[in-house]
């Protein structure tokens, strides 16, 4: 049904460092099967997916050779709107794939574009809402939805479409365990309905039992083909060598066996007492209390909406607490003082990079810093070679390291990470984990807000569950 023959593609923009392209891909996918593309970041998974849904060559320019046939149609010769009737797509970033303002329009969007009759659309919509349990979600506006809900709507749009092929590019990247459960259910239903599913993913655990065959991609080529069942019984050592994330859902945090112990040089202590957080009249967090010492890395986890982000913003001094105190070495801190000594590495690092070069970013606004110090820190974080590059031209991981560099230069004693590893492969996750431990060693208190169990296990000394009891 889908045939990829000798496909080679290189992007023609300056992105070639981040997206090296693919070489000599030969792939054949049967109708109704579920195929997984896995591999490390930048290996070419997304490129293959884009070749399937037509974005390559119709949207992204580049050098293409070989051909992609979908039901006998050559992708190069078929206009996008025809392809969209055969291939539905779900992307990684829920924010920027939502075209409409409310869920219902978004779900029926692809059908409306085809000019399908109103009654037919109404019927299909009714079926979809029943099948996927979307009653509560369907009337929400995009501005009131969480990332997980937006992604579920994107899935619903793919489910309802007439397309028999669904292409998904890391759809679980920013989702919590509950949302992932929901999308697994939707994928199961899609498979039952006979849709062909091609999915590129890092987080593999939720796909167990769904995948028929898996292709491991490395440096733009398919290096291994595994049967779905084979993949999920891979030994841990093999899996880690391939750079893949955990294959089994592991919701138990085994911190008793945690090897990480705090290694403090300077003794600072942060005490949070009876913190109540609210947005206007809505109470978000109730009576949060904990303490943290220098060198500790504390994971903050919990369901979406439990108040993790609010808590981290409050600790940084960006949100005023309703009641409760935050004390640093015995001294109560007001918002301004908290802002002065803390830093948050945001989920979308693009919001916090301002300068026109990496070096300037480290030096901007910070008094008493000279070029030598800044360069030394950049060297430590492996950003030295990009000193003159624009922060926005760096890769995601590099941008994250730059934000961390800024916090080090500014001598921030409390650093909070907001979902630092969402969408990262195993190796990158370990890199981030190593980096976080390095920062903690210098005496900084680190808090990580995350859903990533593997990160918590590899980096955190302690874990706090918001919306439940403290561990």
């Amino acid at each position: 049904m889908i045939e990829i023959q000798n496909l080679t593609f290189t992007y023609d923009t300056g992105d070639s460092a981040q997206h090296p392209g693919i070489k000599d891909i030969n792939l054949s996918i049967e109708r109704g099967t579920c195929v997984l593309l896995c591999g490390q970041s930048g290996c070419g998974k997304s490129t293959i997916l884009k070749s399937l849904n037509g974005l390559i060559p119709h949207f992204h320019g580049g050098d293409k050779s070989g051909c992609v046939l979908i039901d006998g149609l050559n992708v190069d010769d078929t206009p996008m709107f025809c392809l969209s009737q055969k291939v539905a797509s779900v992307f990684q970033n829920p924010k920027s794939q939502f075209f409409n303002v409310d869920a219902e329009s978004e779900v029926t969007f692809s059908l409306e574009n085809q000019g399908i009759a109103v009654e037919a659309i109404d019927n299909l919509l009714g079926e979809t809402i029943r099948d996927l349990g979307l009653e509560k979600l369907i009337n929400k506006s995009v501005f009131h939805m969480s990332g997980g809900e937006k992604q579920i709507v994107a899935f619903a749009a793919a489910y309802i479409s007439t397309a028999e092929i669904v292409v998904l590019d890391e759809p679980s990247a920013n989702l919590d365990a509950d949302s992932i459960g929901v999308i697994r259910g939707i994928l199961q239903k899609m498979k039952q309905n006979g849709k062909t599913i091609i999915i590129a993913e890092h987080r593999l655990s939720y796909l167990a039992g769904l995948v028929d065959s898996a292709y491991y991609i490395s440096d733009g080529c398919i290096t291994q083909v595994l049967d779905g069942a084979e993949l999920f019984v891979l030994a841990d050592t093999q899996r880690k060598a391939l750079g893949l994330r955990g294959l089994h859902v592991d919701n138990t945090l085994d911190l008793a066996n945690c090897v990480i112990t705090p290694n403090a040089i300077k003794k600072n202590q942060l005490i949070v007492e009876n913190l109540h957080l609210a947005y206007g009249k809505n109470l978000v967090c109730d009576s949060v209390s904990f303490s943290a010492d220098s060198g500790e890395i504390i994971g903050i986890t919990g369901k979406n909406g439990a108040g993790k982000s609010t808590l981290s913003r409050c600790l940084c001094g960006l949100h005023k607490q309703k009641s409760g105190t935050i004390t640093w070495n015995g001294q109560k801190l007001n918002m301004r003082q908290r802002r002065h000594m803390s830093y948050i590495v945001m989920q979308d690092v693009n919001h916090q990079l301002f300068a026109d070069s990496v070096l300037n970013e480290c030096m901007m606004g910070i008094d008493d810093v000279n070029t030598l110090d800044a360069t030394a820190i950049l060297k430590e974080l492996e950003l030295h070679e990009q000193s003159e590059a624009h922060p926005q031209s760096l890769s995601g991981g590099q941008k994250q390291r730059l934000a961390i560099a800024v916090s080090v230069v500014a001598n921030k004693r409390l650093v909070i990470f907001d979902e630092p590893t969402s969408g990262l492969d195993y190796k990158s996750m370990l890199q981030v984990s190593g980096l976080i431990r390095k920062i903690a060693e210098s005496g900084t208190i680190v808090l990580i807000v995350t859903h990533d169990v593997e990160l918590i296990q590899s980096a955190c000394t302690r874990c706090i569950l918001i919306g439940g009891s403290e561990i």
Partner: protein
Amino acid sequence: MKETQKMQSKDFITCGIFSALSLVALMIATVANITPYTSLLYTSLYALLNGTIFLLVCIKVPKSGAILVFSVVPFAFMASRGWENMILAGSIAICALLSELILKKNRNNSTRIAVAYMVYTTYISISGSFGMFVFPDVYCNNAIERGINPTIVEGIRGLLNYGTWAGMIALTALASVGGIALGRSLMKKHLHKAGVA
């Protein structure tokens, strides 16, 4: 990628997004309308802020019709605000068309872009305060009837002559050139380096 000269969906979407930014620029510039004296600077401020956005539209969508599509949203916005703003709406249409004509020959030439933008901003500098300057007496009497203190109105009346109007238009033209220059320097410093434009 198949480059055609006709506007495609991607171009319409890009224009739509930049229209949203343009509306924000308009909102920021409206702050100048607090006092009638500073309101003379309103159009210049808008020209300055909008320059970067106009430039980005020209560069990212180098196709015929981009400016027209970019103006659709401000047009709809102005038209829905009342009869005085109908003149504004009408002049956006005219100025957008004129800009298109100027850019028809060569969309990449920086002088042409600057001239096109200068023409474009005249929509707001000429027709924005059309009522005020062409019918000053009606405007001032209205103001007094609405309750503004007569002394202040007399002070404003002194401003409402063709000389001030010409000055405002000239200042806006200057500001539009400044806006484009600002846009270019932002592009050079940041956007080119970031690989975004």
